[in-house]
């Protein structure tokens, strides 16, 4: 017979792994949008009128 607590541990570990993967994905997305924004604006950032 299977041990229900053992399966809960496995499920919790899998959930934690998925949560970390989602967190890393979101952080990567934010960094990506930031970098793309800077590259697309390029020199225009420094050249804008004050």
């Amino acid at each position, binding site marked *: 017979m299977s041990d229900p607590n053992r399966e809960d541990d496995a499920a919790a570990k899998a959930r934690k792994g*998925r949560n970390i993967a989602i967190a890393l994905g979101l952080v990567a997305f934010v960094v*990506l949008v930031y*970098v*793309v924004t800077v*590259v*697309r604006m390029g020199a225009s950032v420094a050249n804008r009128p004050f």
Partner: protein
Amino acid sequence: MAMATAQSNPRAIARWQDFLQLLKPRVMSLVIFTALTGLVCAPDRINPILAAVAVLCIAVGAGASASLNMWYDADIDAKMRRTRGRPVPAGRVQGADALALGIVLSLFSVMLMGMAVNWFAAGLLAFTIAFYAVVYTMWLKRWTAQNIVIGGLAGALPPVIGWAAATGGAPLNAWLLCAIIFMWTPPHFWALSLYTSEDYAKAGVPMMPVVKGASSTRRQIMIYSLLLVPICIAPVLTGLGGVAYLAVSGLGGLVFLLLAWRLFRSHAGEAADPRNDDGLYDVRAGARDARNLFAFSILYLALLFATLLAEHLLGAAPLELFR
């Protein structure tokens, strides 16, 4: 169908690796390779960071369409040895989750490509995802023996998207790269299906050997191979390939034709050979010729694109015979 499969195994636990598997990482790596070739061969240069973003978008778009494919095809995948261990038919991921992942990543890849690179490339990427997920997966695959011929367009478009990302357009040379992969697909997949056709028959997928028989498939492989080789050599006439490319495409093309001819003359795919059972790819009578062509087709395409990539990165002069 996918839901029922997943519900039959409620104890299964989805790990992040299962979601990664939904994206078919090996196919993604091939898509990255061909898209990068298109991007590098294009005459215009874009910012290297934006180029990397473009390749990322194409790779994620390919992964999204793979996830949609695995959601819809869970019933077929469950019947085939090669695919029954995939996350949805194995019950580790719910079909609805695979669908959601596919939709979210499709939107992400197309929108990012449009905003970061250009909207022409984004449009081509959206078309490619829709073509693979809807036209090929939902329609052609279950309906006609020409499924991989027409559906092959989805796999052939990444170099055009890469070219479009760099230039904002898609001239003849970009479509030549597309034509090479498009014409390469039928001999490649039919050679494979000649020794895995039992799996397709069991799943009810109308692959060419199942519908028309092995003899007709071998004949069509020969015809497509005869059409493929001149198209592979054509880039030296249009200012895309140089001397190295001419050598690789010409010599490799001769080997390709020789293997296709041997396959044409063989009895590959006609009868089971009980002496052999090597698991994933059983060797049927004469199927060694089919396996040789299948293996060489992968090497040939890889060499063609690697040579183009190397020539353009190293600045080798194209032959430009017709320019």
